[in-house]
Structures are given as C-alpha cells and as structure tokens.
C-alpha cells in the first residue's frame, strides 16, 4: 500500500478498532507509525494480530532507540510489523524509562520475536518480561555493559575472558547483571573483569 489516501484510510481503520490504546499516529514518508503506552503492549499486539481486518501476521523487527538527552523516558522500543493480507507495514513505538527498563515480551504472540528481543536486550539492556530465554546473543555472557547505548564509547575495550569449561550449562546464563557501568578507565575494566570471574 503506497497511496497516501489509502494509508490514511487504513490508519483510520486501526484507530476505530484500537483507538483507546493509541497515543499518537502519523503517516510520514510512506510509513505508518503509531505510539502506544507501555502497559498496553501485549493486549495491543494480540489484537493487531488476531483482528480479521488488520491481521498483522509477520513480525519484522524490534529494536531500541537510545535518546540519551530526552530525560526520564530514555529508551524507545520500535516494532515493525507487516500484514500480508492488506500489504501494509506498521511501525509501533513505545517509551521505556531508564529507571524501570522493562517491557512485556511479544515472543508468545510471534515465535520469531524471541530471537530479536534477545538481541535488543543484549544491545540496549531493555528487559523483555515474560521471555523464557533472555540471554546474550551477539555478545558473550561475560560482556559488561550494553554496546549500542549512546554512553558506551565506540573505542571501549574489554579484557579477555577466561577459558570456559566445556559444559553446555555454561552457555546458559545468569540473568542478574549489574547495571550499566561507564567504561572509561582501564582500572574500571579490570575491576569488572574480576567481578565476572
């Protein structure tokens, strides 16, 4: 669906059905975008998927944007969905504050979301509640901090990790991680590596 009037009509349809969840909506450069509240994520996505006229059946991606200077609500979780029935893409944005960095997981709604949420958690430290396998995925278990946050320096280096024992259980993880540390000094790094060991 590329026609602007068609897109507006579709946005109207979503608004008429699920308007009570939606905080804001727009059509910009051919992309449909919505903003919803953090509390209604699970209900909203369930309805988007199940509604016979909307049918957003394909979960395209989830990522996080770090608006470091935005104040209390620092993170913005961005979902992309596709409805193959009406050939429409939809972008859904949700604010997540830094102090309470959590959002409901949609991995029970779309099985494919599980892997992508793991990545978003790994890179930004936003916890997806209700995810049954939230582990580091691109980084390794011993990594300290969240690399795609804006306060993680590009040139930061972390120490080599100890050789792991070969058991599988070792790849499973301990979800209780320390909060993000600002890695600026070498001494800090060593301290962290000791903590990990």
């Amino acid at each position: 669906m590329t026609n602007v009037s068609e897109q507006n009509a579709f946005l109207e349809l979503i608004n008429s059905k699920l308007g009570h969840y939606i905080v804001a909506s727009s059509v910009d450069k051919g992309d449909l975008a919505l903003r919803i509240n953090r509390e209604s994520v699970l209900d909203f996505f369930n309805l988007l998927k199940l509604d016979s006229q909307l049918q957003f059946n394909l979960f395209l991606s989830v990522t996080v944007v770090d608006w470091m200077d935005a104040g209390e609500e620092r993170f913005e979780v961005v979902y992309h969905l596709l409805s193959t029935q009406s050939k429409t893409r939809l972008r859904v944005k949700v604010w997540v504050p830094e102090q309470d960095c959590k959002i409901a997981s949609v991995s029970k709604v779309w099985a494919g979301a599980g892997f992508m949420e793991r990545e978003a958690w790994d890179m930004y430290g936003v916890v997806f509640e209700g995810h049954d396998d939230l582990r580091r995925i691109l980084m390794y278990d011993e990594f300290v901090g969240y690399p795609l946050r804006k306060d993680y320096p590009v040139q930061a280096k972390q120490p080599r990790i100890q050789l792991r024992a070969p058991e599988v259980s070792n790849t499973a993880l301990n979800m209780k991680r320390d909060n993000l540390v600002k890695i600026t000094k070498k001494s800090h790094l060593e301290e962290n590596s000791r903590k990990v060991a």
Partner: protein
Amino acid sequence: MSKKNLLNVDYGVGGVTTHMRPRELGDDLHSETMIVNLGPAHPATHGTARIVAELSGEKIVDADVEVGYLHRGFEKMCETVDYNQVMPYADRLNYVSPIINNVGWCLTIEKLLEVEVPKRCQYIRVIMSEISRITDHLTCLGASAMELGAFTVMLYMIQARELLWELIEEVTGARLTISYGRVGGLKADLPDGFGPKLLKAFDETKKFLDDCDRLLTRNRIFIERMCDVGVVTRDEAISYSLTGPVGRASGFNYDVRKAFPYSSYEDFDFEVPLGTKGDNYDRFLVRYNEIFESIKICEQALAKLPDGPIAIDDPHIVLVPKDEVYNSIDGMINHFEMVMYGIKPPKGDVYMPVEGGTGELGFYVISDGTGNPYKVHVRAPSFIHMGVMKKMLVGQSMADVVPIFGMINMIGGECDR
C-alpha cells in the same frame, strides 16, 4: 514408591524378599543423553555459528544455537560515519551478494531524502542485484551439495559463479567488497559491451545449472537426504518471521520485489517459485528456480535499459562532476561541502526493505539532521532464520544438522553484523 523400595520389600514371611518384575526394554541400555558441540569453527558451518545438540542415540532431542562470533558492531560504526561512508560496511553484511546491501542502503537514504534516482540507475541496480542474487544462490546450493557428497556440483556452481563475479569485477572494480552504490546514484555506469558479455555468461551458467540439475534433482541419495528433513509449515514460517527462499519454500508467498516493488521491479515480468512442504528439498528447488527468474529479469532489464544519467542532479546529495569542480566556484564549494559535511537528510526515521539473497533485508535509519545517522538498525534475514533452527533440528538425526544449516544459508556477516 521408588524403584529401590520395590526391590527390597519386607513381605512378612521372614527376611527381605526380592520383588521380581519382568525385564523391560531399555533396562540395560545406556539411556543418558549425550551432548555434542558443533562449531564455532566446524568446517561445515559456513559462517561461525555454534550448535550444541543433545543427542539420544542419533536423534537430536534438544539444541542450542549460538551466533555472534562475527559481531563487528556494524550499527555502532554506522553512527560514527556519514551516509556514503556506510557503503563499505554494508558490503560486509552479506558478502556473497554485497550489491543488494548497497542498493538497500541507498534506497533507505533516498527515501529519507524523498528523492528518486533516474530510470537508468534503477535498471542498473536491478541488473546488478539480480546477478548478486544468482551468485548468492549458487554459493548456497553448491556448498550444501558438497556437504552431501556431491563435490562435482560444487565445482560446477563455483565455476558459474566465477563467470558472474568476473563481470561484477568489470563493472565495480572488485569481486566481493564492491562499494558500488552511492546515495542518489551509482559509482559508475556499465562498461561498453557489458550486455552481450552478460548474456553469454548466462548461457554458460544455464549449461552448468542443467548439469547440476541432472546430477541432483532426481538423484536418489540427494532426495533421501533432503526430503522431509527440517520441515517448517506455512504457519510456522509466518510465526517465525521467515522470508525469502526459506519462507517461500514453506509456501509463504511473500517477495518484497512483488509486494512492495522498489527500483522499478514492477516493470519486469517474473515469477516467484513457491514450495509446498517446507523441507530442505523445497528450499533447494526454490533457490534453483529463482536463479532462472533472476536471469529472466536481467535479460528484460538489459533489453529495456534506458539512456540517461545514472545519478540525480543535486549537488547536496551527489558529488558534482570534476570539470565543474575545477572550472566553477559553485562546483568547488559544493564539492567541498559534500566531502566535509556529507549528506544532511532532514530529521525523521524510515524503514526500507529490499529482497536480499536470504530474505527481507531492511534498514531502519533515524536522522537527527546532522551528517551522521543517529541510529541504524538492520533487519538481517540470516539472523532471524537462525531463530527457527532449533525447531528444525529437534527430532532430526545428527547427520541432518549440516544440510539444514546449509539450506538456511546463514551468512556470518549479516547474521552477526
């Protein structure tokens, strides 16, 4: 009552009686499961991925897939460079079909700038993308066939790929990391005599493919190894967000080129091969047939290739021609502005997908109005397809790990970014 108590029970007749029971199957068998670690540097893992499989006999009862060994921080690096400097990084995503990544990135930024490139540029992008798709599929099929013992097929397919890579080298100057795209245009036009050479290369490729077809498609060993292995139904494919050849093999009719035509794909007549069962054999057939569809698109694009410029005429997006730089003050200023500050798109965010070799390759870019992107996210199909790997493996035998992994066609650079 536990087993131990059953064996030694006092039945009140004096002493301890041993309770007898009939022997059951499996009493003497070694019934513990075994854990086997594959990778991250197993020769049959095309990229560096690690699969930890829990085996009961030869059957996989549980599996864990680990990716990330090739993580180089693509998204972080993109935030530090300007829009055109991302091009070499984009090459290194899917390094088997780098032009598609280049085209995807260019289209994303062009969507952000709300400009459209000239028709000739769009057609050349289509031709180069389709050649890349063919090389991608040839590599995937050749390597997978080799792992099942068909070494000849691999040599034929690599030979065919070599013919095409030579042409890519002629156009772009490099074989793999080509950096051919530019925001608002291309690095260079096609060289003289490119069309006839491409058609000749296609003729030879078709011959190689016919040979491979005769070696594989009705080969009993190949069929028995591929059929009903790693089955994903259509509903599962949609639920796991599978796109590209893997999704289409499961019967999920979704191709970005058809559903959301970009770069003039609507001008060409081609078909989208669909599988019925969603097993490895379907994935093989879908890729095999897509090669012929790509050849069809290239032939049509070459026949209809319009004349005209290959870049838009806007000094704030594309570098001005050199004679203007040296002979006019405006040209000189524009040149320096472009080199020093780069393109400055307006504030906003866009998502733009293209049909990559492995599936829907999407870029999500946020601009804050400066010369560097504020955020870049890549929807990498290989990464998402690795999510279904566990489901495919459980219930299969150990020997099926390699063909399943090969047919998912995980490309390390794209998967781990």
